[in-house]
C-alpha cells in the first residue's frame, strides 16, 4: 500500500487546519451558509435532509486494517455506530456534528486519510478495480497510476472550479470491474505492439440524467505522458464545458457537442504544448510509487489445497459462499474473498463499527492487513490463503458478514434515496430491502445466477440504474413514489445503457414487477445463459408482455 511521506503528511495536516479555520468562521457567523457551502463541499461535507454527511475518501478503494479500525472508531465516537460504503469506493458518515468535523478529519489524517475533493466541481477520488494486484487477468496494478493521479489532482489550482464534478477510473485488467466507460475519463491499461504498457484513454462517459458510454480518444498513451494528457483534457474541458446549465455541464455533453474527432483535436493541440513539460513522469517516480504496491510476501503454495476442497465438500453453506464470494487469485494457493455488505433486509453498503473492527482483525490474520472497498458497495480481502478460507468464513459468519450473494440478485446497488438525500424523488433502500426479502431464498438466487439490480432514487443516478441488468429509477408522480424499470444495462467491458421497459410501477408494485422479470428470464433462458445474455438475445418484448399483460 502507499504510505505517506513528509509531503503528504504536511498537506493533509495543513488541510485539516485550514478546514478547522473555515468551520470556526462559519460558527462565529463570519461566513454565511452560502459562503461556507463551497468550502465545506470541497471537503466532502454535505448538508442532507436530517444532518450533515461527511464523505471520506478511500483512494482507489484500498484500506489498511489500521485505517479500517479508525473508521470504526469514528463511527462509534462521532456517528451512530455505523458507516456507509459508497459506489465510488468511499465511506460516508451520516450523522456528524459540524463542530466536530475538523476533529474527525484530524483523526483521519493520523491514519493517512482525508475527505479532500470528495465533493465539489473538482477531480474526485480516482476509482479502480477492487481486485487490483490480485487479479489473474491484470497487465499491471492500476493503483500505481491511481496514486499518481491522486497526488496530481489534489488541490490542483487550475481544476478546482470546473463546470461540474469530474471522475476518473483506472483498470489494469481486460475484464472491467471499474466501469471505465461510464466515467468522465476512463483509463484502460494496454500493451502496445512493442510490448510497452500504457493507457487507452476513454473520455465522456457518465450516468446521471444523460447516460453516455465513453469514447476512446487515444488508443495508446505512454505512461510518462499520463499527467500531461489528463491536464490537456481537463484544460479543454475547463474552458469550453457548459456553465449555463447544471445538467449539461459534464464533459460528456461537451464531447458530444464537439464530436469526438474535434474534441480529440483540441486535446491533442493543447497536449502538444505541455507534453514535454514538468508534467512528464520520470521513470524513477513511477518506480518509487510501484515499490509501495509491490506484492505482499506470498508463500509458495500448491494451487490445489486439500483441506479447502474437503471443507467445501463437507459443508454446503461454505461451498455456497465459495461459489459466489471467492474469486481466483493470480498466486497459486491464494484466493480473493468478497465480504458482502448486502445481508437480507439491510441497507446495501452499511457496516457497523463492530463489523469494521472485525474485518480489520480478519485482514490482519488472513490478508496481509489489506482491505478493498468495491464500487458495488462490498468489501474484499484480496490475499487470502485457500487454506484459511474456511476459518475466515466462520469468523465472518459470527459477525453477519458471510452472506453468500456476491454477484447475485440481492447484491444490489442502491443510492441513499429519500431516506437521507434531499435530491431524491423516492426511497431506494427500502425497495432494495423488500427485493432482498422477496428473494431471501438463497437457493433460488443461486439458480437465477449473476444478476445486477441497481436502484437510484432520482434521475441523478447515484445508484447506477442505467447500467443495472435490471435498473430501477425512482420518479415522482403527483407526489407518489414510482419506479421506472430499465433492462439490459451493463458496466463491464460490454458497457450498455439499459432500455426502459414501459410505464413505471408504484412503490407497492415494484417488487412484484422485478419478480415477474426474473420469472420471465427463468422461463426463457437457455441452459447456462445469464440474465444479460438472455436479454441480448431476446430484447425487451418478452418482458414487456409478461409485465403489462394484465393491464
Amino acid at each position, binding site marked *: 500500500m502507499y504510505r505517506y511521506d513528509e509531503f503528504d503528511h504536511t498537506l493533509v495536516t495543513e488541510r485539516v487546519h485550514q478546514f478547522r479555520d473555515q468551520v470556526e468562521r462559519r460558527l462565529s457567523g463570519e461566513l454565511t451558509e452560502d459562503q461556507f457551502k*463551497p468550502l465545506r463541499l470541497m471537503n466532502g461535507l454535505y448538508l442532507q435532509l436530517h444532518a450533515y454527511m461527511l464523505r471520506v475518501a478511500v483512494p482507489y478503494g484500498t484500506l489498511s486494517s489500521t485505517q479500517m479500525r479508525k473508521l470504526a472508531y469514528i463511527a462509534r465516537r462521532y456517528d451512530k455506530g455505523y458507516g456507509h460504503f459508497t459506489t465510488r469506493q468511499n465511506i460516508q458518515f451520516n450523522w456528524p456534528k459540524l463542530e466536530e468535523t475538523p476533529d474527525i478529519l484530524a483523526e483521519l489524517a493520523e491514519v493517512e486519510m482525508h475527505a479532500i475533493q470528495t465533493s465539489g466541481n473538482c477531480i474526485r477520488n480516482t476509482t479502480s478495480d477492487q481486485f487490483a494486484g490480485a487479479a489473474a487477468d491484470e497487465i499491471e496494478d492500476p493503483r500505481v497510476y491511481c496514486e499518481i493521479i491522486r497526488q496530481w489532482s489534489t488541490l490542483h489550482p*487550475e481544476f478546482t472550479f470546473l463546470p461540474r464534478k469530474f471522475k476518473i477510473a483506472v483498470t489494469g485488467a481486460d475484464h472491467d470491474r471499474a466501469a471505465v466507460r461510464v466515467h468522465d475519463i476512463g483509463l484502460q491499461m494496454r500493451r502496445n505492439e512493442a510490448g510497452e504498457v500504457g493507457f487507452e484513454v476513454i473520455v465522456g462517459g457518465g450516468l446521471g440524467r444523460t447516460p453516455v458510454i465513453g469514447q476512446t480518444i487515444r488508443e495508446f498513451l505512454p505512461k510518462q505522458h499520463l499527467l500531461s494528457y489528463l491536464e490537456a483534457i481537463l484544460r479543454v474541458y475547463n*474552458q469550453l464545458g457548459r456553465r449555463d446549465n447544471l445538467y449539461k455541464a459534464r464533459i460528456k455533453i461537451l464531447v458530444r457537442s464537439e464530436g469526438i474527432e474535434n474534441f480529440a483535436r483540441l486535446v491533442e493541440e493543447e497536449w502538444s504544448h505541455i507534453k514535454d513539460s*514538468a508534467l512528464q513522469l520520470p521513470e524513477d517516480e513511477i518506480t518509487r510509487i510501484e515499490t509501495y504496491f509491490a506484492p505482499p510476501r506470498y508463500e509458495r503454495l500448491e494451487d490445489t489445497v486439500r483441506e479447502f476442497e474437503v471443507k467445501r465438500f463437507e459443508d454446503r453453506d461454505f461451498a455456497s459462499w465459495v461459489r459466489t464470494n471467492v474469486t481466483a487469485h493470480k498466486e497459486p494457493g491464494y484466493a480473493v474473498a468478497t465480504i458482502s455488505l448486502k445481508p437480507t433486509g439491510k441497507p446495501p453498503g452499511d457496516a457497523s463499527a463492530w463489523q469494521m473492527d472485525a474485518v480489520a482483525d480478519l485482514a490482519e490474520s488472513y490478508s496481509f492487513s489489506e482491505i478493498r472497498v468495491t464500487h458495488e458497495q462490498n468489501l474484499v480481502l484480496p490475499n487470502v490463503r485457500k487454506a484459511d478460507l474456511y476459518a475466515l468464513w466462520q469468523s465472518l459468519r459470527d459477525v453477519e458478514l458471510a452472506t453468500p450473494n456476491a454477484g447475485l440478485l440481492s447484491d444490489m446497488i442502491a443510492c441513499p434515496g429519500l431516506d437521507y438525500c434531499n435530491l431524491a424523488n423516492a426511497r431506494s433502500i427500502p425497495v432494495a430491502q423488500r427485493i432482498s426479502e422477496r428473494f431471501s431464498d438463497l437457493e433460488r438466487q443461486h439458480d437465477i445466477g449473476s444478476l445486477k439490480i441497481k436502484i437510484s432514487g432520482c434521475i441523478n443516478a447515484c445508484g447506477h440504474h442505467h447500467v443495472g441488468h435490471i435498473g430501477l429509477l425512482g420518479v415522482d408522480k403527483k407526489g407518489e413514489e414510482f419506479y421506472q424499470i430499465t433492462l439490459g444495462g451493463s458496466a463491464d467491458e460490454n458497457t450498455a445503457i439499459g432500455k426502459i421497459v414501459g410505464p413505471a410501477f408504484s412503490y407497492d408494485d415494484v417488487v412484484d414487477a422485478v419478480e415477474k422479470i426474473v420469472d420471465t428470464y427463468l422461463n426463457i433462458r437457455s441452459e447456462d445463459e445469464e440474465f444479460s445474455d438472455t436479454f441480448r438475445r431476446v430484447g425487451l418484448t418478452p418482458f414487456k408482455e409478461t409485465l403489462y399483460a394484465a393491464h
Partner: protein
Amino acid sequence: MPLIKEGVLAEDSWQSLADEDELREGPIVVTLERWQSERDSLLARNTPLGVRLRSDQSPALVAEDLERFGLVALEFPKFNDGRAYSYARLLRDRYGFKGEVRAVGGVFRDQFLLMQRCGFDAFEVADKAAVEAWEKAISEISVTYQPGADARRPALALRRNRPAA
C-alpha cells in the same frame, strides 16, 4: 475596490473603462470589444494599456497583441466560474506574458492560493478584511503536487532532490 499586489494593499494606478466612458489620461484598461474596435487610436495614445476579458473570452483572442498590454484583467463573474484559472495559465505558460494578471469579480480569500499558483499577481477584492487574510491564505497549505505558474516547487521535484536516506 481594494487591490492586493505583492501581498499588500496597493494603490491602483490603472483605470478600468466601460465602453461608453471617455478615454482618460494615464494607464487604462479597456474591454476586448473596445480594443478590437479602437485599436489604432488606443495605440496612438502611447500610455500603458490593459485589456479586460470576460470569462467567455480566452486570452487566445489577444495572443498576438499581448506585448502591447501591461495588464490583463480576467473576470470571475462568480467565484465558481473557473475558466480564468486556465486563462491565467495560458497567459503565463503559453504566451509568456510578463505584465500584471489581475483577478476581478468573485475573488475571495479562499481562492488566493489557487489564483496565485495559476499566475495571477493582482487581486481586486471586496473589502480590506481580505487583504488582512492574504498572508495566511497563501501560506496555509505549503505542499504542492503539481507544477504551476508560480515559483513553488512541487513535491515531485523536492522528493527527487532530497538526499538518499
